[in-house]
């Protein structure tokens, strides 16, 4: 399943709203009034109708409603969106349909409505089980809110839940992170997937400003790496296997949608600033709300057209994010050139540096290579 499926498409739907912006967040998202939300959903559905009838001609293997926090919207609006998708897209019966949620914004009715409209996967942003850490991130929920959500979700029939966690937080220690990991792993069998990110301080965020002002006390590099290495070891104890730099799943529950991104599957996208990829081109919708509402069909702007070398380069830098790595045979099938003719020198160098490993048909990052992925990827740009 980790190879490119060129016969299917994926769909991403962006909801740029949230209850309150977290201090580290650099996604396009903001609080908004009810009226804006309503108008946005209308525009979004218009765009979806257009993409479904004019652009996308392959069956959808996944839909991902992300944000922002899609769960801030009233349930009817999400239902409207999914119904619109069903009306114009060829949604496969076993398609993975995910919605991102913030534990502070869910209730039983919403979860029930999601379930009924065909959403079969939840992605919950928890980040930490410690109240002090949640507070320092500017999150709006407590750990108890999260636990309650999990119970409600199970009640509503969800058995495929992802939980987002973060390491390298201000004031976080390896042992507090370990506690978060163990708590989440033992909380529920319906948690099938964990994304564990090492915090990235982005410039244009409050954290970025605090960092610049020297007011953000982050764990040192050694501790940060310790937490990262610990993550895969502990999650493994509970049956979660790492399959990407920051993603872990129980076998068979890897996120289909995201694997699409890393293996070059086409994806369409609707919504503000939403990025799509099809016909070897990358596009992006306008990031300007006013413009978007005025004309959601204006069509996404072409960001770049990939030629053969661009496609090969992406195949490498995205594929190497997966722990299974890139397939030598698939590379040759797709590009009609041997992987070693294309990148033999680079691969050889990284192999001797102990950053890449070659096993069977696959070239993958080593344990050390995962820590230094950019260093390797730059060579394939």
């Amino acid at each position, binding site marked *: 399943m980790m190879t490119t499926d060129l016969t299917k498409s994926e769909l*991403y739907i*962006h909801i740029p709203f949230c209850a309150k912006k977290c201090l580290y967040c650099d996604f396009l998202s903001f609080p908004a009034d009810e009226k804006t939300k309503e108008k946005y959903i209308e525009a979004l559905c218009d765009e979806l109708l257009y993409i479904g009838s004019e652009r996308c001609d392959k069956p959808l293997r996944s839909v991902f409603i992300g944000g922002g926090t899609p769960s801030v919207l009233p349930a009817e609006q999400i239902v409207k969106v999914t119904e619109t998708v069903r009306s114009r897209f060829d949604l496969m019966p076993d398609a993975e349909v995910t919605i991102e949620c913030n534990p502070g914004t869910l209730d039983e009715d919403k979860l029930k409505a999601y379930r009924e409209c065909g959403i079969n996967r939840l992605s919950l942003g928890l980040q930490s089980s410690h109240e002090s850490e949640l507070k320092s991130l500017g999150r709006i929920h407590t750990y108890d809110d999260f636990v309650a959500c999990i119970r409600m979700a199970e009640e509503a029939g969800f058995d495929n839940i992802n939980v987002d966690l973060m390491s390298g937080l201000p004031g976080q220690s390896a042992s507090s992170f370990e506690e978060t990991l163990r708590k989440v792993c033992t909380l529920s069998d319906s948690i099938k997937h964990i994304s564990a*990110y*090492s*915090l*990235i301080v982005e410039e244009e965020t409050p954290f970025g400003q605090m960092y610049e002002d020297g007011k953000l006390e982050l764990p040192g*590099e*050694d501790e*940060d*790496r310790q937490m*990262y290495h610990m993550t895969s070891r502990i999650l493994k104890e509970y049956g979660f296997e790492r399959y990407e*730099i*920051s993603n872990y799943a129980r076998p068979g529950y890897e996120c289909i949608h*995201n694997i699409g*991104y*890393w293996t070059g599957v086409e*994806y369409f*996208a609707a919504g503000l*600033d*939403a*990025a*799509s*990829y099809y016909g070897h081109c*990358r596009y*992006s919708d306008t990031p300007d709300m006013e413009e978007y509402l005025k004309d959601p069909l204006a069509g996404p702007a072409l*960001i*770049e057209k990939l030629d053969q070398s661009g496609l090969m380069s*992406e195949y490498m*830098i*995205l594929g190497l*994010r997966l722990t299974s790595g890139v397939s030598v045979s698939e590379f040759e099938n797709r590009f009609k050139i041997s992987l070693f003719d294309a990148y033999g020198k680079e691969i050889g160098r990284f192999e001797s*540096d102990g*950053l890449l490993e070659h096993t069977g048909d696959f070239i993958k990052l080593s344990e050390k290579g*995962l*820590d*230094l*992925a*950019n*260093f390797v*990827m*730059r060579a394939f*740009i």
Partner: protein
Amino acid sequence: MDKSLIRNFCIVAHIDHGKSTLADRIIEKTGLLTAREMQEQVLDNMELERERGITIKSQAVRTVYKANDGKEYIFNLIDTPGHVDFNYEVSRSLAACDGAILVVDAAQGVEAQTLANVYLALDHNLDVFPVINKIDLPSAEPQRVKDEIEDVIGIEAQDAPLISAKNGIGIEDVLEAVVHKIPAPKGDDSAPLSALIFDSIYDSYKGVIVFVRVMDGTVKKGTKIKMMATGACEEVVEVGYFGAGRFIPCDELTAGMVGYITASIKTLSETEVGDTVTEADNPCAQPLPGYKKVQPVVYCGVYPADSAKYEDLKEALEKLQLNDASLFFEPETSLALGFGFRCGFLGLLHLDIIQERLEREYDLDLVTTAPSVVYKVYKTDGSVIDLTNPSNLPDPSEIEYMEEPIVNAEIMVTKDFVGSIMELCQQRRGRYVSMEYIEAGRALIKYELPLNEIIYDFFDALKSRSRGYASFDYDLKGYEKSSLVKLDILINKEQVDALSFIVHSESAYERGRKMCEKLKDEIPRHLFEIPIQACVGGRVIARETVKAMRKDVLAKCYGGDITRKKKLLEKQKEGKKRMRQVGSVEIPQSAFMSVLKLDDDN
């Protein structure tokens, strides 16, 4: 031409006291240009000069002034460079004048360069009269400044025009003072030609345009001229005078006149500043005094950041040299930096200007090595080398002893900062000469300083220790024996030639330590640990370590991130491309320059 109606003069001032602005006003008021034609500052016609607020090359302007006595006077205003690097050029420009206007800021008063420039003018027997500028400033104290000029410089200042060049106040007074206080030129039109070259520029149509002040004799089209120092002989094609920003041909230049000569001269090296132009068949008895061959004082390696641009750099240097004979360059090779040039400059400012012009006008990215002065190496075999590149230092066993250039430095500073400035001079191996209070609260401190101690970051240190108030001037005193060593930098055990430099043995440890610290910050982490060592004669005197890289990974990369993250990686890769490979270590270009600024006090 009636000599009594000619006034040849210049304006001398400390930087920023308003020299160029006054020049503009004089040109404006004398009506040669309409206000519309005026560029903001006519004399500073190079973009770069305007930004820095200084004038690099001397130029001249001829204007016509109708005085209160009803007569029309020819004013030849000769502009002088305002920096110590160009002292020789200044002196030749002064020699072309009969008088000078001294501009002093009504708030700042007399500064180090004011003194240096006015003494230079007096040395050339110019009649100097002061004007007090910026009298409209709230902080202006014209009376105090007048007293100061009389006390410190010793020239009459009570009737000095009080002006604001910026706002056009008092300019008429200045023009009348030029007529009355600056003497008319002397000279004999029929004597053998002797004309002083005070500048020359290269023009792609006319060839070299030589700026001269005719002392005696007459020069016109067809005159066979000879440059007495270089021996070059040519037939004059055109003579003329200087309109603002253009050349206006005329029939002849006679004694006392200032103007230009063209004669199909191909290179500036044939027309050196300070040389005497005479008639080939009827030469004057002696050349004019004061000619000197200009020698570079500071050298550094200049390399293209992209080694493919070597030819472009060569062309750019050649073009710059067309108009700047004092710029010296020759090819040089560095293991770390590849092919480049060793360039010689009149001083640090000159170096800065050339570097900026290369980058701005020729769009070149450069890596420059630490500037070095010229050391004299006396070898055991009796020979002497002028060492301009530290890498060429012979083996210590072949060296008898070394000498370094020493300057006489004058620093003017308010008394609150005297202590910290003297401390700085001591740190820089200065030898105290004298200190005098030139007025209540201000001191003129004189030191002898090794030139190599002031070419790095002395200006910056001086400014920061005096909150910007100190002003500084120096001239070369000569060479002195000194205990000098070559400091080498080893990165991952490999010597980086471009980072070697000569240093006094007592400062070696300090400098070595600072360089290692600085390089540690500049060199990115690699897969392996990188030792950085400073060595003298093979002995390690300081060491730092760049730790191995532990983390370089993007935690997230989803559909919306791909283009952005790719760009980020591309940018990083672009940055890496611009690095220099030394052994297995990649060193950013900035590392070669960052070691130039090592003073902790900045």
